[in-house]
């Protein structure tokens, strides 16, 4: 009997803390869901009934405990954590991408200054509030960026680019930390 072991996208390189910003890796199941034509209502009903969450509108992220639903792109939402996949699959295309993304939570009081060095998104507090999720770039990478709390963001890039993400993220964290020390 053979056994396979699981390795996280960053290869367990996190957590790290530089200055007052920390980064930790998140391992969770992640499925993309796109309702079939005419089945949006049914899909929303499944999510509401089984997860207790409203279907996310554009840029919305909702969660209950460790289960998240979030807008993902023009045709998909994503569900993270426990989710009624079989029921959803009857009314929607459901695709498992759990291992396809490197998911990193970054938090700390200067987190927005760190993000300002990585993404063209408007990351000002009043424009990117908790409960919002957006698709954009982190340096040259396609990314999903969600605001979980005022000073906590969830970054997702393709798994194969995890090393580049860590490099870009730590460079930005170091710069922001160094500014705080600047005399």
């Amino acid at each position, binding site marked *: 009997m053979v056994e396979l072991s699981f390795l996280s996208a960053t290869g367990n390189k996190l957590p790290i803390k530089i200055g007052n910003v920390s980064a930790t890796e998140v391992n969770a199941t992640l499925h993309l869901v796109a309702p079939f*034509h*005419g089945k*949006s209502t049914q899909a929303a009903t499944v999510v509401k009934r089984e997860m207790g969450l409203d279907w996310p509108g*554009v*840029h919305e992220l909702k969660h209950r405990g460790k289960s998240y639903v979030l807008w993902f*792109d*023009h*045709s998909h939402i994503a569900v993270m954590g426990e989710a009624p996949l079989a029921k959803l699959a009857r009314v929607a295309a459901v695709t498992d991408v759990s291992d396809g993304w490197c998911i990193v939570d970054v938090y700390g009081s200067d987190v927005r200054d760190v993000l300002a060095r990585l993404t*063209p998104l*408007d990351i000002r507090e009043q424009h990117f509030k908790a409960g919002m999720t*957006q*698709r*954009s*770039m982190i340096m040259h990478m*396609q*990314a999903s960026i969600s605001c979980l709390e005022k000073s906590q963001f969830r970054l997702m890039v393709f798994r194969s680019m995890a090393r580049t993400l860590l490099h870009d993220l730590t460079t930005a964290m170091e710069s922001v930390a160094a500014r705080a020390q600047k005399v």
Partner: protein
Amino acid sequence: MRIECPLCGSRDRREFYYAGHASALERPDPAASAEIWDNYLHIRENLAGVTNDLWHHETGCGAWLVVTRDTVSHAVLLARLAKRDKK
């Protein structure tokens, strides 16, 4: 340059991929004449002024957009989804 994505709001140009004039949406019938296909694929109005062109919000929401834009001033007047929703 920034484009007002109908889904995502105002976004930096670097998130978008450009694909030419929006006439690409009007794909001819496969049996149409060589001239019609030549027009479709190659010939362009190429206006110096307001034009409609196709942009893909590639690193954003993934939607293809028809953007009404002035090629002289670079003013972006309107962006709408290319998708003609038949759901």
